[in-house]
């Protein structure tokens, strides 16, 4: 007779549960992160320090063609992006059917502001560039089919229309 002792089995199961669970959650998060299409949106921001988590950039979206104040954005269910990825032509408050919806997260509004973790070595230069009016920051984000927005990176380019004069 070589039947496993039920107590020992339970003991092993209890030990394995955290590993299996964390592994499964990681796999799900990883898979989800690969879905969706990438878009570009102008942002403005600043860089508060957070000692525990390293540096991150908190930014405000400049949604093209959206005339809505922060109050409206805070209560909106979501936004609808129009255009061909990655270029957004215009953005409207989400009402009814939409091909590229951005849905508000439950954690907060998520439509007016967001945050992106940036490497320590890039945080300070990026903050300076964001404060520079002659440049504008573009956030590349991935929009999942379920409407979840995942920020990827911020690039800074000379603002359109304003040729920075050579000193």
């Amino acid at each position: 007779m070589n039947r496993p002792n039920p107590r020992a089995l339970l003991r092993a199961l209890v030990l394995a549960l955290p590993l299996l669970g964390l592994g499964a959650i990681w796999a799900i998060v990883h898979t989800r992160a690969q879905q969706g299409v990438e878009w570009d949106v102008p942002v403005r921001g600043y860089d508060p320090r957070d000692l525990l988590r390293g540096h991150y950039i908190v930014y405000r979206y400049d949604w093209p063609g959206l005339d809505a104040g922060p109050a409206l954005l805070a209560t909106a269910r979501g936004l609808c992006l129009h255009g061909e990825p990655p270029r957004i032509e215009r953005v409207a408050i989400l009402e009814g059917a939409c091909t590229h919806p951005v849905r508000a997260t439950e954690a907060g509004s998520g439509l007016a502001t967001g945050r992106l973790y940036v490497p320590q070595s890039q945080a300070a230069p990026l903050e300076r560039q964001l404060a520079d009016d002659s440049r504008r920051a573009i956030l590349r984000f991935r929009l999942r089919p379920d409407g979840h927005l995942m920020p990827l990176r911020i690039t800074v380019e000379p603002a359109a229309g304003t040729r920075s004069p050579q000193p």
Partner: protein
Amino acid sequence: MLQAMSLRKLKAWEDAGLIDAATHARIRDWEAAHARPYALRAVVGLAVLAIGLGIVSVVAAHWAEIPGEIRLTLHFTLILGCLAALVRVDHDALLFVPGVLGLTFFGHLGQVYQTSSPLYVPLGLWLLLFSPLLLARGRGWLIVLLFFATLVLTLLVYAGELLDRADPAEAWRTGARTALALASPALIAPLAAWACARSDRPGFWRRLARLALGWSATLASAAAAASLASFRTQPDPEWSLSLAAALAVSTTLVVAAAVLRRLRSDAQARLEPTVFAGLAVVPPLAWLLGGSEVVAALLFMGLWAGLALAALHAGWREAFQLAVALIALRLVILSFELAGDLLTSGAGLILSGLLILGVVWAALRVARRFAPQAPGRGEAGPG
């Protein structure tokens, strides 16, 4: 090795005739045989700490250059290592470290994949994955507190979220759901009583039962404190929300009491269900009678007088002293509530100072004189 001071003391005791030479020698031999290399341990501990801090700072300095997946793999491997060690060894530290690493793993995932979710989601998932392990293997306060504090934190965050998103039209449901969430740790008490009788770690379950009782007493105290306001006479969202909350907390405590009563039939163990049933009375009473300072104070003091009585019965010294201290504190607060203008005149200040001194003196006398002796420190308690 005995330290110089102890040696001097031994010599002095021998000279004073308190101990004889043989005893002196025996003590010295015993101490020599049971010496612990504290200095060596401290040095080794210091070295291990330095190496650990070094690794942490090296990793932190190159955080950005390490790809997210590798960092997560490292994090995961650390958890795996601790859990693998638990196959052979039984130690609370080997539970605590992967527990905390598991909590931070959720934050790390969020950082690498730039995701966010309401805080109660990762906390709840952690409880789901880790509490079977903690409850099955934990022994001391470290694990009891890790489990219970995370549970309460999760429920507090969840309750806050429920209230934030509350629909005024559904005040009943919101009140009941919030209160059920907050009161549910009370149900740990019957679970602990059940497990205590079957486990080879009764101390662990007794500690957990104490925390469940402590949390239930906190909720009842909060209800008593809230009875300063009269929710009974308020307009609707508050009226139904508060009544639903009071009834839900009360029901949960009654269920805990009933299950405890069924589980334990011996006379001494009757006390615990009685305490829970007593706590269950407070929230509805606070809702019904609330609206004056005197009622709020009487409810609070009555609640803790009952708990003091129960502690006396159970021989739980610390709980008795805590109850007396809280009653005294509430009495002082009440005196200020009733005569707040005392503080504006010199004679009033003197009077209130005397009152505080009197209350503190009385409380100290009661707490010292009537407190039960702590039998077998740390293991006393209801049940």
